[in-house]
């Protein structure tokens, strides 16, 4: 199993304030640079950064290609993942996506992971005039053509349902051939299975449990082997799962430092993606962090009286879970602490993912109003005390496991896993 860091660039407003400290956005951008630079030195494999627009407080990461360009010059090995680029043409013209991905691949020496998706918040869809019922079709058409642009010399032009352009040679071309590994955002099981059929890795936003992952993994690989009709020119079979993350000297201290990060992450996500609150959001006039803090403590933190004593067990979490898949993902984002605790606790918890053949565990450290120094310490602890043993087993056990499955695949593969 490999490891990544995940960034939304969250920035809660100060309590009671109408806006942020003038230095706040500069601060979190530079903190992210420092955090990823450290992760790179310690051997983390991936960083994934979202593209979101207008989702104030929840995500201030609207130009991830610029952050990735900066990171390409401050890091040496870590893979630079778009998690994800919004590819419906009204967000980003497909030729511009192809150009930016290729340029970043050149700048980084072939370290780009090309994740794509379409988002579903009213703020973003409405802001760019993307029709909700068409967004998946737009994503597919544009993503397929971005891949074509990266391999075709010249690109022969396209007359599509959602964009058209004449023949042009879209330059530069990426270092990785035929193109960087493909990922797609998947918050539901069915999307993961669509990913398998299209030959893309699934960047799982469902906070899936190890057992769920095990079931999905088996079906995912069967589809890759037997029913794949790729969207690109090389497939990237792989499963990633997100988990909130905070490592400290004791479990109690990790929970304290984790603070309300996971709770705010889930609350603000639910706020923007709900058709009720998200559609009614008044830009620039709401303090979402104040709303979050006004919740009863057990809803805010999700752990209630267990906070002071210990982490919730998987069984305790499972007993309270909603049945609806989307609601369950939010619940888990707020409450499950698989990667929160001492490095011993974390290693024990995440071993279950390794046992179920997870490819990449993506850790969400920057969320809510967590402190930069705590995130740095977490990365340091994890990188020195947990990562090496998993890295070793990735090479000795997981890679042969993957190669065995890939041997049954008769398609070109470009994967960094």
């Amino acid at each position: 199993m490999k490891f990544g860091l995940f960034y939304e660039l969250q920035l809660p407003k100060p309590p009671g304030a109408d806006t942020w400290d003038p230095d706040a956005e500069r601060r979190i951008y530079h903190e992210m640079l420092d955090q990823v630079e450290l992760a790179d030195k310690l051997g983390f494999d991936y960083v994934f950064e979202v593209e979101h627009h207008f989702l104030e407080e929840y995500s201030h990461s609207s130009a991830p290609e610029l952050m990735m360009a900066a990171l390409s010059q401050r890091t040496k090995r870590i893979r630079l993942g778009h998690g994800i680029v919004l590819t419906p043409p009204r967000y980003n013209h497909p030729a511009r996506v192809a150009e930016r991905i290729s340029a970043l691949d050149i700048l980084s020496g072939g370290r780009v992971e090309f994740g794509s998706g379409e988002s579903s918040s009213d703020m973003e869809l409405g802001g760019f005039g993307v029709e909700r019922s068409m967004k998946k079709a737009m994503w597919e058409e544009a993503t397929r053509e971005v891949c074509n642009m990266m391999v075709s010399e010249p690109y022969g032009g396209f007359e599509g349902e959602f964009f058209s352009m004449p023949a042009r040679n879209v330059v530069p071309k990426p270092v990785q051939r035929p193109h960087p590994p493909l990922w797609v955002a998947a918050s539901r099981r069915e999307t993961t299975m669509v990913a398998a059929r299209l030959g893309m890795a699934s960047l799982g936003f469902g906070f899936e449990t190890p057992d769920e992952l095990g079931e999905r993994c088996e079906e995912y690989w069967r589809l890759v082997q037997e029913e794949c009709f790729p969207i690109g020119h090389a497939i990237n079979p792989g499963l990633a799962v997100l988990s909130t993350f905070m490592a400290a000297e004791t479990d109690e201290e990790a929970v304290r430092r984790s603070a309300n990060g996971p709770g705010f992450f889930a609350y603000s996500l639910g706020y923007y993606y709900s058709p009720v609150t998200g559609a009614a959001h008044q830009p620039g006039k709401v303090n979402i962090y104040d709303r979050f803090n006004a919740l009863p403590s057990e809803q805010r933190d999700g752990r209630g009286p267990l906070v002071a004593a210990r982490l919730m067990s998987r069984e305790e979490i499972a007993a309270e879970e909603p049945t609806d898949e989307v609601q369950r993902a939010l619940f888990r984002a707020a409450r499950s602490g698989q990667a929160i605790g001492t490095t011993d606790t974390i290693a024990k918890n995440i071993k279950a993912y390794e046992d179920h053949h997870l490819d990449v565990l993506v850790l969400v450290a920057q969320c809510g109003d967590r402190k930069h120094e705590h995130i740095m310490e977490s990365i340091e602890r994890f990188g020195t005390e947990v990562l090496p043993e998993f890295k070793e087993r990735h090479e000795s056990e997981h890679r042969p496991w993957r190669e065995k499955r890939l041997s049954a695949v008769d398609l070109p593969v470009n994967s960094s896993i």
Partner: protein
Amino acid sequence: MTRAEKINDPELRSRVIDAYGRMRGGDPSGAVRLLADSFIDTLRVHPELLELTTTVRGRPFPIVARWPSFGANLVFDPDAGDPPRIDFVRDRFALSEALTYFEFLVDLALDQGL
């Protein structure tokens, strides 16, 4: 055996597998039409599916209403008493959309033991 082949109901199984064949044959729009018809027929034969709910934001939410809204949209008002139907707001569908409808129907059939 694929998951679609595990559907017990022979007619539903046959139509779902046929829909998959249309997708592979480059006709995702035809696949969506067949899947939508199969879904509505399933709800007609098994009206108890309309009663199944999950909880969303503290309120009961019909499981069948999770049918994706990509343009073959489910119209279902439990209070009005009208039978559920699919309204097609467009004719052309992408492969990923057809695959998502396919996965939804297969999951529903297997989860409910149909």
